[in-house]
């Protein structure tokens, strides 16, 4: 375990260096949120109106939270690194290191979001307070449960994105599959809460990782209840176990193939 702690620490240090660079990403986060504030201001005609059961403030806070998870974790870079290592053949050297490659990447990822997420959370809080107003019915006492859900959510996201990257063992370029996964998360989980979709589709969406990656944690922040929290946590643990298992499996198969082909 200690070696992972060392990896974590050095990534953390490196990322402090890049704090200014990370803050450059604020621009895009702000652009996204700004567009959505304008969009929902246009869509909600009367104050107090409900769309899919959400007030305007809740709707905007929902997007702010889902985008915070995506921007604050940046799972794309960890997935990109894995795909790059495999494609360049670099993986042959990393595979024999005294750590598990995927866990090493996830540790790096954790080191990265440990800096990024708090930065984005602070930004979201500021933008939200200034441009939207406080979250209706936000409970400070439940903040730890929310944080836990967010962290689990972004870890699950990274695990799934890593799984897709690991397909690079078999096909030359897995990026197109990353796009589709990202788009699915974006359209179904990030910009709208699931409730906005036709009733017939909703149960289907709740089965996808979207429910545990974005929708769950964001819903909890916008509209907290103890039962919902336990339900989401349970689903997340289930998904983490399944996704993690899948990741180890794909990696083992891929690594074996690598040995057969001699790298």
């Amino acid at each position, binding site marked *: 375990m200690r070696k992972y702690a060392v990896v974590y620490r050095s990534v953390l240090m490196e990322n402090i260096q890049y704090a200014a660079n990370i803050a*450059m990403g604020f*621009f895009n986060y702000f652009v996204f949120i700004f567009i959505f504030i304008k969009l929902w201001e246009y869509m909600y005609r009367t104050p107090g109106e409900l769309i899919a059961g959400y007030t305007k403030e809740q709707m905007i806070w929902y997007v702010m939270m889902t985008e915070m998870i995506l921007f604050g974790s940046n799972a794309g870079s960890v997935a990109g690194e894995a795909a790059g290592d495999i494609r360049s053949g670099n993986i042959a050297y990393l595979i024999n290191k005294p750590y598990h490659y995927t866990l090493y990447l996830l540790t790096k990822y954790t080191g990265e979001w440990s800096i990024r997420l708090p930065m984005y959370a602070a930004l979201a809080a500021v933008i939200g307070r200034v441009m939207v107003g406080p979250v209706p019915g936000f409970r400070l006492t439940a903040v730890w449960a929310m944080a836990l859900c967010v962290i689990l959510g972004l870890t699950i996201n990274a695990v799934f994105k890593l799984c897709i990257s690991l397909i690079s063992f078999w096909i030359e370029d897995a990026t197109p599959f990353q796009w589709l996964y990202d*788009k699915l998360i974006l359209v179904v989980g990030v910009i709208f809460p699931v409730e906005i979709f036709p009733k017939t589709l909703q149960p289907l969406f709740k089965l996808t990782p979207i429910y545990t990656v974005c929708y769950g944690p964001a819903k909890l922040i916008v509209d907290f209840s103890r039962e919902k929290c336990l339900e989401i946590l349970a689903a997340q643990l289930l998904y983490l176990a399944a996704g993690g298992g899948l990741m180890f499996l794909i990696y083992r198969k891929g690594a074996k193939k690598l040995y057969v082909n001699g790298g």
Partner: protein
Amino acid sequence: MSTAVKNQLRVCLLSVQYNIMREMVNKVTFLTSVGFMVLNNAAILAQWFILLRLREDVGGYTMREIMLLWGLTAASFGLAHILFARAFSLPELIIGGKLDAYLVQPKNVLVSVITSSTSVSAIGDFLYGILLMGLCGLGLREWLLALLFTVTGTVIFTAFALLLGSVSFWFLRMDMLEGQVVMGMVSFATYPDGIFEGVSRYLLYFVVPVGMAVYDPVHVLVSFDAAMLLRVLGYAVLLTAVSAAAFYRGLRRYASGSLMGARV
């Protein structure tokens, strides 16, 4: 002068041809990239079906205008990344010292650099854009306008990226600026301008050139306005001149990777 231009064009065409040949080496990868990018873009239409179910227009745009907006943005962005992909990753070349090869050629450095690579997925963007505009039922005159605006949009996107990328000549740490702002610009370019008003509208015309690149062209396509058309053309020329000037000014500060060893 005209032979110089001809020679330059010959090199550019050869360069684009070689770039595409490089990407075509693996046909399966090439086709999945293009095809998935079309799908990827098409997925976003779901968002508009949802929004237009809630209200009959969004910022004054119905589905047809949304499709024109998306079509123009995707086609311009796509064409810019097919022909001038390197303009969008300039900081990497500047900081990594990868401009050397272009500087020892007796050709226009700027043109050689920006045409030196291509993006395959951009072909998907471009096809998607054309396809989407095709679904809008444009007449001949509108088609000609749409193609003209695809070109001006390409020029504006590329020139703006070039301008931002050139900042890296002065500030090494601004290497993320270009990617960030271009991404933000594309975000704006895929939402109706009707939802923005006041200061933000002003910014979209004068700071991030989304207004000139896509909003005005969509308005001209919906109802023709010669003054607006001329404004777009003039802006494209002006922005190109400013960006090229910034690039050449910055080139004097180019360090050719000599800093790499010393950088912490």
